[in-house]
């Protein structure tokens, strides 16, 4: 008996017991659907986390900060130079594995005022125009300052949406999107012109919450006093909050207007707060950092007063979290698939008991052990394959349902891999479940099987 015949016989057998077969398949359908749904959820979470990682500049961005001098060099502390523009030029000239260098000069507790309104951004930085690319900023209105603005130390700034929201009002308050380009503000009592504004950064979750809120009617006013409900809401998307609360001015402006008089004891302080570099090839992150380190050891006169900060930990955390979700979800889904497999085995055992006589007849007219074994196994596998295929369809519906039930979470995403693995698993379970019944059926003695009533 060839395989095609076995498959046809298997289909007939399943068709003859439609209800029973569907019930049996249900186990596999649910197992496959839960496996695919679980992996789609995890994939959605992964997408959200990776998005945040990209938002801070991606894995290829490495920050260079000042650091405490190691103990054995403490005696050289007086000669430590810190991060300066020398480092920037040296890296540009001598570190080919570094694609881009961006100097940053930061000022703390800067207040931007417009009339009676004021705002203190988290990040107030003098930098180069390439900070736009370095930190993955997108300009929504106006423009980024350019090299000429920097060269001439113009009083221009580009702001994040938080500054606009605080000084003029957010789109929700005003009812329209205000474009602040061209407006004048005062930063530390210096007049500045806003020449650009970044787009509003938010995670998929925040965007969905906002869109959902639009659809709902306005909140009913209660008599309870207005209050701040804490930072819990913003905590989850710290990255985006930080980006929205950013103000950039040209590096030279920062140096000329603020920093040259702001050093301790009014001595000009030419040091940079930090510098960001972008490596050419993330695969060679280790070597790139080593190269940058070697260059910097020259400019720092051999004193290691700096340290590198990468996003590797962040990426590792993402991967670890994803792996945990995957393992715990996978175990549950696989168990439910196994339960489905046990269901198949149960039905196949019942089915061969019903068909002992048929097996006896088939054996009497010449079916071998292999013929019967293959026939029963194929039946079991056919049930599993049909269940698996139906499960894949069900999983599409399940994923839509999941997205509908929790509209604010990351959209679950079905991957081809997940489909393939779930389907392969269901077929494997079908084979495993069919083995014992097939063996029992094939081993039947023809005479005893024929006599069975």
């Amino acid at each position, binding site marked *: *008996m*060839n395989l095609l*015949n076995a498959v046809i016989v298997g289909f*007939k*057998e399943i068709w*003859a017991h439609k209800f029973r077969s569907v019930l049996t398949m249900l186990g596999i359908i649910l197992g496959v659907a839960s496996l695919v749904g679980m992996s789609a959820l995890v994939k959605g979470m992964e997408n959200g986390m990776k998005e945040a990682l990209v938002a801070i500049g991606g894995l290829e961005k490495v920050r260079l900060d000042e650091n405490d001098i190691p103990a054995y060099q403490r005696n050289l502390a007086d000669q430590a130079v810190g991060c300066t523009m020398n480092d920037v030029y040296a890296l540009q000239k001598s570190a080919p594995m570094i694609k881009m260098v961006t100097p940053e000069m930061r000022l703390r507790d800067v207040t931007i005022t417009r009339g009676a309104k004021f705002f203190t951004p988290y990040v107030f930085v003098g930098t180069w125009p390439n900070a736009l690319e370095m930190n993955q900023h997108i300009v929504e209105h106006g423009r980024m300052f350019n090299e000429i603005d920097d060269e001439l130390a113009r009083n221009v700034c580009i702001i994040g949406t938080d500054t606009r929201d605080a000084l003029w009002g957010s789109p929700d308050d005003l009812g329209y999107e205000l474009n602040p380009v061209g407006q004048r503000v005062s930063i530390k009592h210096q007049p500045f012109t806003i020449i650009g504004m970044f787009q509003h950064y938010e995670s998929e979750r925040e965007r969905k919450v906002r869109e959902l809120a639009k659809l709902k009617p306005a909140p009913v006013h209660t008599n309870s006093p207005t209050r701040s409900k804490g930072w819990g809401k913003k905590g989850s998307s710290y990255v985006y909050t930080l980006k929205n609360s950013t103000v950039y001015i040209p590096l030279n402006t920062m140096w000329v207007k603020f920093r040259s008089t702001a050093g301790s004891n009014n001595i000009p302080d030419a040091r940079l707060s930090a510098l960001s570099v972008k490596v050419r090839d993330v695969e060679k992150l280790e070597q790139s950092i080593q190269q940058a380190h070697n260059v910097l050891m020259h400019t720092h006169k051999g004193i290691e007063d700096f340290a590198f900060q990468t996003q590797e930990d962040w990426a590792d955390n993402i991967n670890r979290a994803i792996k945990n979700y995957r393992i715990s979800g996978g175990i549950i889904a696989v168990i439910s698939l196994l339960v489905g497999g046990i269901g198949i085995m149960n039905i196949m055992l019942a089915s061969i008991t019903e068909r002992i*006589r*048929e097996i*006896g*007849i*088939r*054996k*009497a*007219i*010449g*079916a*071998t*052990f*292999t*013929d019967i074994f293959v026939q029963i196994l194929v039946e079991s596998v056919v049930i599993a394959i049909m269940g698996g295929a139906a499960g894949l369809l069900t999983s599409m519906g399940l994923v839509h349902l999941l997205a509908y039930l929790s509209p604010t979470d990351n959209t679950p995403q079905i991957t081809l891999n997940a489909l393939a693995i779930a389907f392969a698993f269901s077929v494997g379970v079908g084979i495993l479940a069919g083995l014992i019944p097939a063996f029992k059926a094939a081993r039947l003695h*023809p*005479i005893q099987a*024929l006599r069975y009533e």
Partner: protein
Amino acid sequence: MALIEVRNVSKLYHLGGEEIRALDDVSLDIDAGEFIAIIGPSGSGKSTLMHLLGCLDSPSKGTLRLDGTMIEKATAHQLSRIRNQKIGFVFQFFNLLPKLTVQQNVELPMIYSGLSGRERRERSLAALKLVGLENRAGHRPMQISGGQQQRVAIARALVNNPKIIFADEPTGNLDSNTGDAILELFRQLSREGRTIALVTHDPEIAAVTPRRIEIRDGKIAREVDARLAGLDRSSRAPQTAAAASPVQP
């Protein structure tokens, strides 16, 4: 050399520590082309003998040779192949598969011998024509009468051109008229040169065959061969008839 050579065959069963001799030292030859009846009351061991001759079982002792193959040494797989290629069975309860059509039932042995679909259809139709049921090919076994079912079973037994056909009480479940018609069919097949062994408890039925072997308590009690007595004019020499086969493709 005879088609079937049975030499000192015994079959023992163990039931609750007690040894039961279903067959005790039986020797017997069946030539190609013979029409033979194995008779005996129930429990006499005639069914056990048929199972051994039909390669459904292996003997405990003795040797059994079918068409030159030593049965007692064959594996289960080889026995299956022999049953498929060289033996046809007709049972008392027809033993057709109810879910398959008449034609599919007849095709079943050929599926296990690996014939192509086209050849299976041609040969199964030819076999059904031989038993006069070609117009019932698409029916289910439950939709035709008992006599017709038994004819389908005979067609199934014939379809692989076996060396020998075993019929176990083929009329046991039929009324006497249909039973007679079935017996007439067997007689006709025998005239065409088929080797047929009829197993029955009924001496009347056994009377249609020229040669009768009576089994009692696992032993051959009596053997009657009408041809040796010169009484049966219709019997022909086995060699002349063996070649004729209506289902030959």
